[in-house]
Structure formats: C-alpha cells, structure tokens
C-alpha cells in the first residue's frame, strides 16, 4: 500500500508475465501430449490398413492427409517461436492455428472412421473376427479383451439440454444415482463456450457435433434455440443419431415459445426431462440408478473429455476450472456447523406430506462452507423445493443440490400419469388455476412413450344433483379430451367417462375435500378407472 501506483503497475505486469510463462509451458506440454496422441493414431491407422477393405483404406488415407495438414501448423517450429514471441498475446497467436486443428480434429475424423468401420463390421461378422485378431496382434492385447470392448453397445450416461445462446442448462438427466457433479450448470457453460469457439473458428461455419476422448464422447445435437449434449460410451449407430435428432426436434416443437422467449425460467422446461429420460432409458443401460457397477466413474471421464478438447480448452482457459475439479477444495475459513440429524428432522417437518420424495434418504454432506444434498428426489420440481427448504433451514451459504431425479421407465411413467389428477373450478368445466401444466405433461408422456389409448374419468364433488353431476363430470373429461386433440393426440386414442360424485377422493364435508373431488383422472387401463387411489 505504501507503493506508488506505477510501482504497483510494474509489479502487476511482472506477476502477469510470470503467470503467462507458466501457462506457455503448460501449453507446450499440452501440444506435445496432443502430438503424441496424434502420432499414436497414425500408427493405429497404419496397422489397420492391411485388414480393411479398399474403400475404407481410401477413407483412411484421406484422413491421414487431413491430419498431417492439421498438425503441421501445430507442431511447426514457427508456432513455438510465435509463442515465445507473443507471450503477451497467446490467445490471439493460437487462435488461427487452433481453429484449423479443431476443424480437422482428430476427434471428428476418428469418430467418422470408427463409425464407418463399425457399420461395415456389422454387415460382415466373419470379417469382424479377422479384424479383431489382426488388431490385437498388432496392439498386443488379448483378443478376448478387445472383443469385450467392441461388443460394448452404445450407452448413454448423461443428457443435457442447454440454451444455445447463454449456455444455461435447461434440463439434465443422468443414469447414475450420484452421477451429478456439483455444477452441471458449469458444464453447460463450458460446452457452449467450446462450441461457440469452434463455430467461429471454423470459417465454414460448421457446428461441432462431437467431442471425443478415448471411449467417451459427447454428441451435440444442434437446434434453433437449444442443443442436446449426450455423454456416452461406445460408438453411435444411425438409429441413435436419428433418435437424438428426433428428441431435439420434439423439444423444439414442444417448447418453442419458451425457448424463443427464454428469460432464465428453467422450470418451464421440466417436461423436457421425459424425452431426455427416454433417450437415456432406450440407449442406456442396465445401469438403473443405484445399481452402479460401471467401469469408470463417469464424471472425471467427462471432465477429461472436455480437457481433451485440448487446445481449444487451453485457449478458453477452462482447463483451470476443470483441473480444479480433480483437486480437493482449498481449505475454507471455519467449517460449517450443521447437525445433519436436526436438519433432517426439520426438513421432514416442513415438507412431510407435501412431497413424495424419500426425505429420510437424503444425506447432508458438509465440506468447508458447502453443504451438499445427496439422494433422490422424485421429480425435478421436488428437487428444487427441497433445495430451497434446506437453504432456508441451514446457515450454509453454498448449497449444492446434488439430489438426483431418476429417469423413469414406463411403469413409472404410468404411475406418474395416475398421480396427475387435474382439478377443476367449482360447478364448472374449467380447469382450476395452475393445473394446465399437468395436461401438458400428460401429452408429453403419451407422445414419448407412444401410449396407444388413454382413459379419462371425470368426477365431481358431492354438491348438486346426481344427473347434473354425471353430466358435469363428463364435460370435464370432454374438456381434457379437447385439449389433447388440439395438442396432437388422435381422437380415437382417448376414451372418456363421467362418474359424477360416485367416487370421491376427499371428504365432501370440507372445501379441500370438495376441491380434490372435482377432477379428471388418467389411466392406461380401463379396469383402473375409478380405482386408482394408489398410495402416495
């Protein structure tokens, strides 16, 4: 503080250059690593050459050229010189080089190659075993091991829906019970930064469609306002790519307005979860949440993958952040005093009966100033409510809401449908306020799971005479039917009935009970209508 301003500035400059020096060294190391990997790839191509059909060989030699071309500027001594010279402006110096490198990126061309090989191999099984033997001979791995690796089907681990412009995470589903890292939102931002960077760097305006690291990949399916990022292992087939595209389209057609007028209200996208979960479900896995045995924990791998987007990463400085994930959090001032048992009891007291999630199963993990919630929530909405409630109850300044919402299989979708009773205003065929979103969710579930027929049963409260109530209950079901038809469900998929006041859910002596009774219920099975008071 005694220093004068210019001394300060001088010191600042010095510190800054020192930092840059460290970064230059790091960059150089990264480039060397990159080049190692690339020359490996080259070897690999060579060793494959003799075993594959002509058409493929051509493809490979093409890629080789591309690689050589892409590499030349990276490895050229000119660049090293440039870095030396331009320490103050590393980013700008690297910018054009990185652009080209990514454009012809190893990831892209290798993915293409592997996919082509796999498609061919699918068609010629005998060829496959020859291929495998040759490969293992050259690579020195047992043929059995390779067979295992190759037979691993495509497995989707995580699906992100990300707002294209802002990088804000709109929704996320994970196949792992504890698969969520603390900050999926950050991943959304990082992917977007990389994507935008790549796009502007490719003068051709190509979209980055795939980021790959070893056996882990992120597929990016671009839409007008949002994109899907799917983290998976294995190699994608055409079916998956088509489904990915379809899922993206559905998100856009269903949420078009919310996407176009996006103002940060992520809750509006809750129902997109269903389609994303379906993708996870169909191309996932025996890994039901919690059952757990996976070869590698997925999050570090995702981070590695992002790191492997390598040069771009170093450019954007995101590497710091990702590397930091591997390291323990630095020591915090005073550890947070949280009594988990007390907190659990308070949480239960606040939310008992209001949510369906297993509150007792929630764990509270204190790390320095951070309180992390772990466990399962039964819906994305409840996940938020629980997070907020804990924020109110505890002194923690940072709350990591790691609660996971399980992707649901069909039987759960069915249970969900039944729990979505829509309520109506008194003596009226109009929905009660705030009930419309339930109809939207039902429509989404029907479309996503290709449900052939849905049964709608209208009910009334106990007031009024029986004939009128029968009519009113039917009108309510009819109202819902109309909404479904307007939203693309065929008329012959909908069967309606009105049961009047004959099957009350709540006590007709109280206003709350009456409100509960003014409803339409959903079912996939005609026998269930009127008999679906499942325990909640």
């Amino acid at each position, binding site marked *: 503080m005694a220093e004068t*301003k210019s001394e*300060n500035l001088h010191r*600042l400059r010095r*510190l*800054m250059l020192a*930092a*840059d020096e460290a*970064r230059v060294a790091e960059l150089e190391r990264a480039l060397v690593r990159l080049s190692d990997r690339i020359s490996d790839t080259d070897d690999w191509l060579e060793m494959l050459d003799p075993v594959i059909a002509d058409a493929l060989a051509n493809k490979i030699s093409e890629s080789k050229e591309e690689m050589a071309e892409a590499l030349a500027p990276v490895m050229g001594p000119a660049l090293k010189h440039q870095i030396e010279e331009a320490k103050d402006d590393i*980013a*700008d110096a690297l*910018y054009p080089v990185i652009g080209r490198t990514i454009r012809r990126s190893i990831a892209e061309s290798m993915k293409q190659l592997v996919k082509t090989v796999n498609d061919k191999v699918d068609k010629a099984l005998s060829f496959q075993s020859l291929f495998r033997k040759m490969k293992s001979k050259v690579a020195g791995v047992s043929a059995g091991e390779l067979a295992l690796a190759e037979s691993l089907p495509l497995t989707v681990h995580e699906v992100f829906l990300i707002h*294209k*412009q*802002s*990088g*804000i*995470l709109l929704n996320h589903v994970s196949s792992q019970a504890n698969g969520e890292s603390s900050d999926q*939102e*950050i991943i*959304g*931002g*990082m992917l977007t*930064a990389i994507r*935008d*960077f790549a*796009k*502007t760097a490719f003068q051709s305006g190509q979209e980055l469609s795939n980021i790959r690291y070893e056996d882990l990949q992120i597929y990016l399916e671009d839409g007008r306002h949002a994109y899907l990022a799917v983290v998976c292992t294995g190699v994608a087939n055409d079916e998956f790519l088509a489904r990915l595209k379809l899922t993206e389209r559905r998100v856009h057609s269903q949420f078009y307005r919310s996407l176009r007028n996006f103002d*940060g*209200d*992520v*809750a509006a996208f809750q129902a997109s979860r269903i389609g994303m979960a379906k993708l996870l479900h169909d191309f996932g896995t025996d890994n039901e949440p919690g059952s757990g045995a996976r070869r590698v924990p997925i999050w570090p791998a995702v981070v590695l993958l992002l790191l492997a987007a390598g040069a771009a990463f*170093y*450019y*954007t*400085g*995101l590497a710091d*952040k990702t590397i930091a994930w591997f390291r323990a*959090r*630095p020591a*915090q*001032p005073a550890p947070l005093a949280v009594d988990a048992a007390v907190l659990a009891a308070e949480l239960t007291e606040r939310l008992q009966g*209001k*949510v369906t999630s297993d509150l007792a199963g929630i764990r509270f993990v204190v790390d320095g100033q951070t309180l992390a919630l772990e466990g399962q929530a039964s*819906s994305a*909405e*409840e996940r*938020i*409510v629980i*997070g*907020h*409630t804990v*924020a*109110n109850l505890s002194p923690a*300044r*940072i*709350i990591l*809401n790691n609660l996971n919402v399980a992707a649901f299989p069909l039987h759960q979708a069915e249970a969900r449908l039944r*729990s979505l009773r829509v309520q109506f205003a008194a003596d009226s065929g109009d929905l009660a306020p*705030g009930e419309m*979103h339930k109809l939207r969710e039902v429509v989404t579930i029907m479309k996503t799971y290709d449900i052939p027929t849905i049964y709608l049963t209208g009910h009334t409260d106990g007031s009024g005479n029986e004939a009128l109530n029968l009519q009113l209950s039917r009108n309510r079901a009819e109202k819902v039917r109309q909404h479904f038809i307007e939203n693309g469900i065929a008329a012959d998929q909908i069967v309606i009935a009105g049961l009047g006041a004959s099957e009350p859910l709540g006590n007709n002596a109280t206003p709350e009970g009456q409100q509960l009774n003014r409803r339409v219920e959903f079912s996939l099975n005609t026998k269930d209508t009127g008999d679906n008071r499942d325990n909640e």
Partner: protein
Amino acid sequence: MSAASEAIIYSKKICMLGTFGVGKTSLVRRFVHRLFDDTYLSTIGVQIYKKEIADLNSAKGRPLGVNLVIWDLANIESLTPATRTHFNGASAAIVVFDLTRPETFDLKQIHLRTFLEVNPGAQVIFVGNKTDLMAEGPDEKALVAIAGEYDAHHFLTSAKDGSNVDEMFQALAANVIS
C-alpha cells in the same frame, strides 16, 4: 405435490467485464467460494462459476431462486468473433474498475458497448473495487458519473475484506429477476 409446483427458479448468465487486474476473478471467488487470494493469475479466456441464491423474493409466498451462472471473462483488448460469443445470452454485466488505477475507468477498453449490442436490455452494474486500499476513503465521483450515464447501480467493494460483495451480487440478482 402442491408445494412442489409452486417453486420458481431462474437461471441467469452474468458477464464480468473490466480491464486486467481490476479484481473480476477475485470478486467472483469471494462471492462463490468465500475465498480471497493475493496472488494474481490473469484469467485466460473464460471461467464459469455458478451460485444459487435462494429465496430472493418471497412476496408471492413462493420460493423464488436464481442460479447465477457467472462468466468471468479475460480482458481482451481487441475482441475477436470468438471472444464476442462469450457475451451471448447474458442478462447482466458487472463492470469492474480498480479504484487505485483511474485508467481502468475507460469503457472503450472493456467493450461495454459491444456487450449491450449483443444483449440489448441487459442490466449493468458498475463496481469500484479494492476499497481496502483507499486510505482516505474511496473517491466515488468517477464511478457515480459513469453509473449515471447508464442509469445503473454502482457499488464500492473489496474482494479482499469482502465488503459489499454479497450486497452487490444480491442486488444484481434481484434486478435481473424483476
């Protein structure tokens, strides 16, 4: 279920703008991780942080929260098309000045105009940082003048002793929500 459907949560992207060394990263780290570090590691490219602010405004009796997704950008003298994309979709900018260095108050250097072109209608907050270094109390004049020009809020902060940092982010969160 009824409690659940009333939860409202927003996610907002915020960009940190300002010349090198003014304390952008330090302010974010203070706010998000409650940490401060005297060493200076200049940011290259962009780093992204996130913090949830719960219960901002319970006026309607509903839980209302904001996820601030904070993009801590490197100061880049000349914007390239790639670095410009970092501004996309932001709801607000926090423009940081170093009170000990008057030259950091030059708005041209920090591309505020470009930011507002990319995000018309975005909120802006002006911050004079490093109050702890101002022995005779900070001189607010320049800050007030600039904030007045943009009809924006301003704050005097110190990432080092933490003063006004939470207040500044809280005010911003309330602003981007309303």
